[in-house]
């Protein structure tokens, strides 16, 4: 097994990041990561909750240097962190914000001393070393781990840059509006920076006005890594968004109209990424040119009775995809939405089985189910939940759910019913649920 350098095409004096509009060099980043590696506790697992992108990256590198595994939770609900603390004894939390968790011992990101040691070469990390574990929600409420080796992560960063031809935008600065604890954010704003010679914006601006002014302050070429929700907000709010050179979008379906509007508004090509937590990024397309997706280098598909699988390239283990996929020759494909049980809201994924498990485990709930309406472009569809729980207040159920599931999946509305339309086998036919939803809508209208 070979080692892979942390930073590809290493140039110690090159700009690695921008913080508060000031450049930080590659050697300064590595010096800070090495300094941090000397301070973090001696444990096997770290939950990196740093909200600053640069500090998150330094934490990731520090963990690699100390052979610690970074756990990347999909959310920081009390319930999820509790489970992590049970499944990974001794795990600690690396945090830089005010709001931290009480579930895990927290190591606060220290104030750097600024004594940057010069670095002649980047550290090399064994490719088989487990670098991170990302999670999907299992149907029993227990998170399902997906370990990622350093080799898989580094190759994913390289493959993404290659597929998107980012070599043509050498030294591009990237601004992300997405969390780096998710695979999309990790790959597009951290790994592609480290493995593709890009520069990162340290922050994660939230409101449209912040995103516009921060993007405008970056030197060109500059790229925006974002989601359909943010694109819609940016185009609706800013009359004249700042010019960019590259747009990257993922997490939810994007309509051709919104894609075209974004290309015109920002004056840049827009590419979409398709991927999942298990496999990472899988394919890209530019909707202005084609609806067909092109897989990343080395990535291939095969089908069997269970569905469509993806393998090869940076993907370590074959992964069954949760989407309906139509292969159209020469390895290109079309996407036809999620398979029935899987849910994607604002880029956060879970399954109905997982949500129903939590709903039905609340005291006083006799029966209950979540229903997913169709997701529209750029607007966020919310789930409806029906519950049979006589004598239980709506607030009680919402409070219990809030502790267990990500806020994006909270039901809106939560409807109390006398019984659910279960058939003789105890199943809930989709038709009967649709009727229930229609009756509810008629009542509201």
């Amino acid at each position, binding site marked *: 097994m070979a080692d892979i350098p942390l930073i590809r095409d290493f140039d110690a004096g090159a700009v690695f990041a921008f913080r508060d509009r000031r450049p930080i060099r590659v050697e300064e980043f590595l010096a800070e990561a090495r300094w941090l590696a000397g301070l973090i506790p001696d444990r096997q697992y770290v939950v990196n909750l740093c909200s600053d992108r640069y500090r998150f990256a330094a934490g990731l590198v520090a963990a690699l240097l100390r052979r610690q595994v970074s756990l990347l939770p999909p959310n920081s609900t009390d319930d999820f962190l509790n489970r992590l603390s049970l499944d990974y004894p001794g795990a600690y939390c690396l945090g830089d914000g005010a709001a931290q968790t009480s579930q895990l011992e927290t190591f606060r990101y220290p104030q750097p001393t600024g004594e940057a040691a010069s670095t002649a070469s980047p550290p090399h990390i064994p490719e088989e070393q487990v670098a991170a574990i990302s999670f999907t929600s299992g149907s029993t409420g227990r998170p399902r781990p997906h370990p990622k080796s350093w080799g898989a992560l580094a190759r994913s960063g390289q493959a993404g840059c290659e597929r998107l031809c980012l070599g043509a935008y050498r030294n591009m600065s990237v601004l992300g509006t997405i969390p780096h604890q998710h695979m999309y954010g990790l790959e597009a704003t951290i790994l592609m920076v480290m493995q593709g010679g890009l520069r990162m914006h340290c922050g994660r*601006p939230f409101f449209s006005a912040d995103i516009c002014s921060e993007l405008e302050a970056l030197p060109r070429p500059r790229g925006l890594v974002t989601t359909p929700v943010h694109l819609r907000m940016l185009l609706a*709010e800013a009359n004249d968004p700042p010019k960019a050179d590259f747009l990257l979008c993922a997490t939810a379906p994007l309509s051709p109209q919104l894609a075209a509007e974004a290309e015109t508004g920002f004056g840049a090509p827009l590419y979409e990424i398709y991927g999942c937590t298990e496999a990472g990024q899988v394919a890209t397309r530019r909707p202005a040119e084609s609806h067909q997706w092109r897989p990343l280098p080395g990535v291939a598909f095969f089908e069997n009775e269970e569905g469509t699988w993806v393998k090869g390239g940076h993907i370590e283990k074959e992964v069954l995809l949760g989407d309906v996929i139509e292969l159209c020759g020469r390895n290109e494909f079309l996407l036809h939405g999620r398979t029935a049980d899987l849910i994607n809201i604002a880029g956060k994924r879970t399954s109905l089985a997982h949500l129903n498990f939590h709903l039905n485990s609340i005291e006083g709930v006799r029966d209950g189910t979540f229903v997913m309406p169709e997701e529209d472009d750029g607007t966020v569809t919310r789930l409806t939940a029906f519950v049979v729980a006589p004598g239980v207040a709506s607030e009680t159920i919402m409070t219990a759910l809030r502790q267990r599931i990500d806020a994006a999946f909270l039901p809106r509305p939560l409807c109390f019913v006398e019984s659910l339309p279960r058939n003789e086998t105890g199943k809930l036919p989709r038709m009967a649920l649709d009727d229930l939803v229609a009756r509810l809508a008629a009542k509201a209208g």
Partner: protein
Amino acid sequence: MKEILSNKALTAEELKLAQLIVSALNLETQAAEIDPTAPLYGEGMGLDSIDILEVALAVSKAYGVKLRSDDDLNRKIFNSLRSLNEHIQQHRAK
């Protein structure tokens, strides 16, 4: 007791903002029933970060006030409907 109750009553401006939020987010709540002192995030109104972006967009269109997070007051602004309304009234252009 009387004073506490009157603190929870919506002013005309707050009601207008409450109606804007209810329609932007398709909430089931009646605008008039929103407690102007309850937190907008999490407990209370139960909004999440995407809701807050929707509210920011609606506020920008209706009042011409662009919300910024590099504003130190941000947490304070989204503390409640009342504090958000105060911020808007101080900065409104329309």
